[in-house]
Structure formats: C-alpha cells, structure tokens
C-alpha cells in the first residue's frame, strides 16, 4: 500500500511528489485510516472489537448493503479503502503515525483512538494538518472543552455521561443508600470516572458519603488488599470504571471472597466484558456500556442489522467499542454525503462543515452533535442490572433504565466538571 517508507530518505521526496499528483475524482477510493489498539492490554477489550466493527461496516458500505439512509455504495458512491494502524506505543509514536497516515498515506479521514491521551495529542495536530479526524472511543471531555476544534469530531458521547448515568441509576434503585465506595485505576480514566460519579452522587444523594476511595495501579492484576478494604466497609455499593483485564481479575478475585454479597458493584464498562465473564459476573451487578450500546441499545432495525452482521462474522455479539466505531463511521458517511455536491469529491472543509451539528440514528440510538460547537455528539445512555440466564446459558441485562441525552450530558458551552459541581443544572430528565 504505502511503498514510500521503503524508499530511502533521498528518494522519498520524489515519491511523495508523485503521490501529491491530482487524485482521480471518481476511480480513486476514499482512504480511511483506522487507528485502534491492535496489541497490548487494550487490544482485546477495545481495540479488536473496534477494528472488527470498522471492518464489517466498511464492507457493508462498499457493498451498498447498509440499511437506509446509509445504503449508498461507499461514501456517496465512491468505494472505501481502509488502512489499519496500531495505537500502541508512546504518544510520540501515535502522533507520528497520525502524521504518516495523513501526509504519507494521504488518507481522506482518520477514524480511531481509544486512549484519551492519544486523542488529546492528536487533536491539535489534526487541526494543524487540516485532517478530518473522528475519535471513536476516548472519553475525556477535555478535547472540546480546552479548545475549539475545526477538523476533529467525536460522535460517541464523552465519559461524563457514564458517571452521571451510573449515579442516577444507583440512586433510583437504592433508595436508602448511605455510603458508597470506589475502586478505580490510578490513571486519568479512573480518576476522571470517579470524580464524575462521586460528584454526581453528591448532587443526587447528598446524604450518602463516599467511604473507601481506592486507586490501585493500572494493570495491577492483584486486588487482595483492595477487596479486604472493601469488605471492611459498610458501603452498600462500590463504583468501578475498571476495564477488561483488570475488571475480569477484580471480578474473579472478589467473587471468590463474596464482595458482591455485601454490596452492589457498579461497572461502568461492564458490557464490554460480560460475554467473557458470563456466570462469573455476579447477578445484580449494575452494568453500563458507555452509552446505549450492545444489550443496552434499543431494539431498532439498524441495531438488529449491525448485531447480525457482527455475529455472522465474528461469532460473538458486538460490544460497545464496536458500536462506537459503527456510529462514528455512520456519522462520517452522512457528513461526507451531505457535503458532496454532484460528482466532485468534497473538500475536507466542506465535510467538516457538513459534519457540524449533524443528527442521525445508528445502532446505538439517536446522536446529536450538540456540544463542542457541533463537534461532540450526545446520545441517551442506559444502565441495567446483570443477570446470567441459566436456561439460555446467556448473559442478560435486565431492569434497564434509559436516561435522555440532555439528562446526563452538560448543556452546550458548559464544562462537564463545572456542570456536575454546580449541581447539574439544566438537566432534562
């Protein structure tokens, strides 16, 4: 695909000059860079489902088999070509690979990134290079709060919704809650998740107090001391934003010691791991999936379609990263087609302009690019209670509660942290 790297430094200049030659408007496929963890601890829970989601959705686009209004071949009749890149490595590597995608491989858009660190580092570069970029999984609200972005979009809602939704569900289900605890990984995601959740709890259940606040090291793997600490607590619930490897380790270790018999566990990313943990995941656990994804998604036609093609190919249900990837690609497709006038390929600026404030309904429900000056999507979210159905030998989420987008997301123009701290004013539930 990209032979240029193989050519020594001196020749590279010539090669790239050739690449810059005017693209053939019709024949040349639209190139999309897909960036996701293909190696490392985040590959299995997020990176691979995300990539899988991209693969089948892009295939469906090219075959023109996606349901209406996404049924045009490729993007507006032009076929798509994907290049998959690993997100693993330092931020330096991530930025370098992003530049390589844009400048060397001349992709038309980049869709990807799981780590919020990657997203924060890539966003300014994307704007500088005027490269259309859609983040699909990273959660930090800082991306559009710190600075207005021009070419960066995020269809998936940011992580504030997860903490607020979890708090709302917990308060609705546990009326007499007096104390809650938290166990979150000691890095930005864990710290932010806890801050949002604890902040929302302060607003929604001011009488309940946070008891044990634990931050084990990321990928610690061994949680004996943390579980003991929680066992000695009188909390009725414990919040965790652990994700896969750590989430599974914690689940196995706590179930051996019966923590779930003493308190309800709230797993904000539990959906991504439930198909593997199956009956090891205790019944009664409150499960979130970064939005109304997977079993939390509404039973719509487009959701059925997506679920089906994913099952057919990978023989396992799609988890939320796959949903987020699908939503992102659907959004990009709509924006592209909206910007396309006649046969000519729309410019990046035209696509970006069309993307702003776009609304559509995908497998994970209705998206509105409402925040960040039309660059950040919001959707409804849902939480539910886990139940392993022994008859069907299948995990289930029951007792699902849905929270409208405006109920769990800050209004446009207000920073998420501030919104929660100020009592979540203006929430429409």
């Amino acid at each position, binding site marked *: 695909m990209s032979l240029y790297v193989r050519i020594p430094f001196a020749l590279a200049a010539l090669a790239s000059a050739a690449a810059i030659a005017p693209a053939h408007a019709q024949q040349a496929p639209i190139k999309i860079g897909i960036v996701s963890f293909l190696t490392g601890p985040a*590959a*299995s829970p997020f990176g691979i489902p995300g990539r899988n989601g991209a693969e089948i959705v892009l295939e469906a686009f090219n075959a023109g088999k996606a349901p209406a209004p996404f049924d045009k071949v490729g993007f507006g009749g032009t076929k798509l070509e994907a290049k998959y890149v690993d997100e693993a490595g330092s931020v330096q590597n991530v930025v370098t690979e992003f530049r390589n995608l844009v400048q060397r491989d001349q992709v038309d858009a980049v869709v990807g990134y799981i780590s919020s660190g990657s997203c924060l580092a890539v966003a300014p570069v994307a704007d500088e290079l005027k490269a259309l970029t859609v983040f699909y999984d990273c959660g930090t609200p800082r991306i559009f709060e710190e600075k207005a972005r021009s070419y960066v979009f995020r269809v998936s809602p940011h992580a504030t919704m997860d903490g607020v939704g979890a708090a709302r569900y917990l308060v609705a289900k546990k009326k007499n809650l007096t104390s809650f605890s938290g166990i979150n990984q000691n890095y930005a995601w864990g710290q932010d998740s806890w801050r949002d959740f604890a902040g929302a709890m302060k607003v929604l259940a001011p009488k309940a107090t946070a008891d044990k606040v634990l931050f084990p090291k990321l990928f610690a*793997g061994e949680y*004996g001391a*943390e579980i003991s600490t929680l066992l000695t607590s009188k909390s009725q619930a414990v919040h965790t934003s652990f994700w896969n490897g750590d989430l599974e380790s914690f689940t196995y270790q706590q179930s051996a010691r*019966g923590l779930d018999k003493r308190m309800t566990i709230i797993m904000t990313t539990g959906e991504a791991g439930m198909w593997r943990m199956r009956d090891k995941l205790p019944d009664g656990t409150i499960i979130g999936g970064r939005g109304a994804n997977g079993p939390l998604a509404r039973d719509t036609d487009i959701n059925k379609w997506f679920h089906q093609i994913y099952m057919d190919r990978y023989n396992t249900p799609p988890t939320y990263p796959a949903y987020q990837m699908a939503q992102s690609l659907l959004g990009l497709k709509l924006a592209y087609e909206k910007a396309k006038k006649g046969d000519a390929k729309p410019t990046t600026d035209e696509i970006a302009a069309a993307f702003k404030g776009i609304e559509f309904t995908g497998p994970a429900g209705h998206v509105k690019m409402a925040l960040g000056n039309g660059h950040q999507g919001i959707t409804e979210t849902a939480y539910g209670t886990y139940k392993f159905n022994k008859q069907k030998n299948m995990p289930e989420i029951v007792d699902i509660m849905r929270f409208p987008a405006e109920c769990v997301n800050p209004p446009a123009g207000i920073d998420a942290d501030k919104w929660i701290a100020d009592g979540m004013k203006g929430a429409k539930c």
Partner: protein
Amino acid sequence: MLTAFAILTDGLVYAAYLFIVAIGLTLIFGVMKILNVTHGSFYAFGAYGAATAVGIYANADWPAALGFLFMITLAMLVGLIMGIILERGLLRLVYGKDEVVIVLVTYATFLILEDVIVLIWGAQSYAAYQPMVAAGSIEIGDLVLSNYDILLVAIAVVLAALAYWALKYTRQGRLLTTVIFDRETAAAFGINVTLVYTATFVIGAMLGALGGAVMAPKISVTLGIGVEVIVLAFAVVAIGGMGSIEGALIGALIVGICRAAAVHLAPQIELFVIYGVMALVLVARPYGLFVRAQPRKI
C-alpha cells in the same frame, strides 16, 4: 484490629505472589549475573499455558485438584522448553558480553515473545478461574478469605523451604552456592559451569512460568501481563539484594506488608510504595538488604 489483621493477611498474600514471581529472577541473577527481562515472558507464557490447561480440564470434567496439578505441570513444561531454547539457542552466544548488553538481549527477546503470544493465542483474553472457584473461601470475623490465596501462601512457603533445602543440603545445591560465591573457583574445582548455567536458567524459567500459572486463575490472562511483573519482580529483588533467595523473601514481605498497609490506611500513596521502598533501601544499602558490598582490594 480487623484492619491490622487484614493488612497482615493481604500483605502475606501479596508477598507470596511477589516471592513466587521473584524467586526465579533472583536465582538466575545470583548464578549467572543476568538481569533477565524475559522473566516477564516466562510469567506470561506460564499464565497462557495454564489458561489453556484449564480450558482442557474444565471441558473434561476432571476433579479440581487433578486439574490444578495438570495446569501447573503444563505451565512448567512450557517454562522448561522456553528455558532450554533460550539458554542453548541464544544466551550461550552472548555470555561474556557486558552485563547490561545481556539485559538488552533479554529485553529484545521479551519484545519478540510478546508478539509470539499474539501468534499463538491471539489478542483475546483468557479466563482460568475454575481452580480458584473450586477452592472456595473461609470467613474469619468480618473478613472473607479465598482459600486459593491461602494456597498461594503455602506454595510460596514450600518454594522457599525447597530452595533453602536444595541449596543447603543437596550436592547440586552446594555446587550452585559455590558458583554464586565465586565463578572462577567453581570452574577451577572442576564444576561444569556450562551445565550449571543451563540448569539454573531452565529452573528460573520454570519458576517464572509457575508464577504465571498460579496467578492465572486469579487474573484475566491477557496481553501485557508480563510487563507489569518485570518491574515488580525487579523491585523486590533489588530491595532484597540481587541474587539472594532470602533477600527475595524478605523483599517480598516488606513490599507486601507496606503495600497492604498503604491500601488500607493511605490509599493515595499506594502507587509510590514499591518504588519508594526500593529507592530508600538502595540509598541506605546500595546492594540491597542481603548482599554486602565487596571491599575494594588493591
């Protein structure tokens, strides 16, 4: 009181885990003076091997004890094979090079083996919780302890006792002690140093794999588990004194108890505990607790 008891038990369990992962590392360093980064790979391969074994026996409906033994055996077999291949096929070529260069050889090998895992087992994670579930739990006061954790402590104690007995009371063990003490003398006494090296490395590899195997039921066996273990084991070994088995034991206990105390009493410092203890010990005793500095001779 409850907290003190919890700190003690949690500390012991964590120390057992640390000792099991560190003993192979310190053994290899003691005898061969190699700081073996590949130890993380042995751990990972052991864990993946164990997960594969559990997958087999869970489907075959064997009794739990037999399954546990099968799991350990298979993992150690993986360690054995890897140890032989690496020592005979690669390390042999670089003996005599700078200590630090050999560290990098093992680092390179570690990078390669990380991807070999992907080639063999794919990128998905594996679960092997059956042995831990089968072990059950006991309740002491308000605290529930997993019997599997108690088993881990027992395994660590057995390993420590075995190492002590083997080094002190067997012929081979005393030979090994000689090599640790003085390589040239050992060679002069006609000890087959090459054989001792191979044997040590293979035993170290098997111990690393054992560490992964006994931890596998507690964790999600997934990519990257080896990386975390390397630095942890290094820290324990550096605290105790590189190459010292009793040092690894004491180092594991210190780190285990300190970490448990931090989690219970001051969770915000938990992240620093290990490195803090390591830096403090190294400042006070540059060669770790159980290794004395060699006086300079003229």
